[in-house]
């Protein structure tokens, strides 16, 4: 069974790119446009990993990570956050919130796939 990845990003083009990359590599992809929608989908679907943007309207990525980590279904689920900030403080904050890893935008498709293999396996 293919692994399901939830991608949360307010930018449709980034979402589309992530979805395209992952689905081409054989993952199933669920999309959400903000943290609140992401939380809803993360807790009602069986997901194997989450890729989330940090800077989003409605519910930002950090709040999403905290809220999702408070939900029992998130145990052991990797959360990768996308960021354009090379800001270490933000990374530390996201890690403290419960993120597993990060990916710096702009990323190449194989970089993203390498990260996904790292956290969920092929």
């Amino acid at each position: 069974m293919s692994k399901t990845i939830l991608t949360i990003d307010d930018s449709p083009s980034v979402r589309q790119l992530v979805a395209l990359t992952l689905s081409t590599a054989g993952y199933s992809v669920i999309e959400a446009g903000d943290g609140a929608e992401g939380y809803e989908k993360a807790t009602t679907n069986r997901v194997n990993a989450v890729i989330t943007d940090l800077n989003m309207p409605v519910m930002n990525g950090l709040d999403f990570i905290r809220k999702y980590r408070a939900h029992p279904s998130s145990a052991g689920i990797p959360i990768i956050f996308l960021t354009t900030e090379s800001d270490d403080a933000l990374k530390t904050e996201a890690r403290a919130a419960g993120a597993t890893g990060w990916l710096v935008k702009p990323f190449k498709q194989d970089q993203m796939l390498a990260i996904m293999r790292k956290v969920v396996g092929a």
Partner: protein
Amino acid sequence: MSRPDPAETFRQEARDLLEALEQALLDLSEDHGDRELVDTAFRALHTLKGSGSMSGFDEVAAFVHDFETAFDRVRKGLAPISDALVRIALNAKDHVQLLIAEPGVHAAAGMPILAALHALVAENGVAAPPPGDAAMARPAKTVAEDGSASGWRVRFRLPGDAMAMGTNPLLLLEELRDLGPCEIVADDEAVPPLDDFDPLVIYLGWDVTLRADVPREAIEDVFLFLRDAMELSIDPLADERAEAGSDGADEPADVPVERAAPIKAAAASASKSGGASLRVAAERLDELMDCVGELVIAQARLSQIAGHSQDVGLSSVAEDIERLAATLRDTTMSVRMVPIGSLFGRFRRLVHDLADDLGKEVQFVTMGEETELDKTMVERLADPLVHIIRNAIDHGMEKPDKRLADGKSTCGTVRLTAVHSGAEVAISVSDDGAGLNAQRIRAKAEEAGLITPEARLSDHELFQYIFHPGFSTAQEITSISGRGVGMDVVKRAIEGLRGTIELTSKAGEGTKATLRLPLTLAIVEGMLVRVGDGRYAIPLSAVEECLELPASEVAGTSGRNFLDVRGTLVPYLRLREMFGTDAPPDLHQKVVIVGSGDLRVGLVVDQIIGNAQTVIKSLSRLHAGIGTFSGATILGDGEVALILDVAQLVSSAEQQQRRVSGRNLGIAA
């Protein structure tokens, strides 16, 4: 189905983001202190940069990155918001738009904008940090450590909660194994008794001997996400190997490292769950609407055939189809409805720039942004509204000193509102400027021979002359209005949308232009009437009531075509005469009272047939000059009925009335 083009998705997204940015900037120009607006603008820039670089719009990403860097100082409160800043930021936003529209052409033009932007935010002496791409930056590492060895001893212990936080230690070990042959020994020293055991906590540590000639960095990369929170030691195996002699020396050192497998060419079907809304190409909506129009016509024919048939099955199917067609029509029309707010947004920039150029202070207030109109209508309203707003600011609005002298506040207000009223939308543009000058309009109208000096006209009637072709009272031609495109063009455009426009004004208090428009252009409820042998449709929204033509008026050709409707005199038009019908008139002729704006006119017809779904087909270019009809429709029996242009008929009745009263005046004098 074709795969979505990421570049096109980005363009659409960028349009939305740039609009949000512009709105935020314009709002900021009114309220310099609103942090939330700064955040909104910043977020728009940030997203634009991220998705731009992801979608291959590198120029855009680079420019926006600098833009964002400058704006970040504003966000952090290091630089104040000022009108100058907003102006340059708007220029920068325009530049981004150019970069997206025509990549590779305008890159150089961005430098002065950025320079100006950076100069502004650096005003307090601290220069903005030079923009540098820190993407994928890694902490500095010493050269000495960068050397590779024939093998490594890697000892690590993960943070206890790492597994709960999504790290899978098995995958880490596998990744190490991908680098080369490994001997892995688990350190189970810290595993607690079963009672205290938490399955989500990692108690194990690992000691891995990796026999491969890989750089230290490659091993560090395995632990990329955990390095600062874990215990990790990476030591070269060199000395150990010396001790162990030949042990491991024959191991292949260059195991192919599969860091990034090529993406499979075959595109797996993406199971993307759709969001709450989706974007659809506008042409498809137009096609859909065309199809629905044809369906409604075909359905009318079916109903007619079923009506004449004795077949019960046929009638019941025809009824079902009638119901379905009506639902489909309503749904399709509602899909095409867009809030007019998207249009209003564009005007804010216009007002801002115009006021700036003309040295006037103008506050722009909009209401009813959520009012929905057919997409085509919204698009075609843009130009007329731009013209009206330009006029309001250029001609209507006074300069601040003049306003002050008149006892008004220096800042004028232009108000744009939209409201639904029945099957119509009323859009009004009002200003609190000087108002129209009735004397000047009168003088101009007399000069143009439109009215005689004796004619007595109310101010309201005079104002409507502004809509005559070539009628401009602008005493000097400014770059903004008075360029020969007059209000007559606006009026024609509005009438082309089957709408009406009306001006009211009060000297010293301001002017108000009110546009009334139907909700949709494609299908209207019509009233079908017969005049002689021909059938005609009148838009039902314009019909106010139907009466029988009194016997006293039937033969009357006195020229005084007025009807007493409950004490009000209403002029009427005999359509039989207008259309030159030879067929004998019906015994009991009917009058359909129609309204346009404040005016009411009766239309004398032979017979009222009933309501009909009217799918509007425009007339050919050859018939474009015919004012009486706005289009044609196909009836259920396949025949064509012309659609009466109510606004046109009302104004011709009004002229007839004026001629008559003019003649009467002449007699009286």
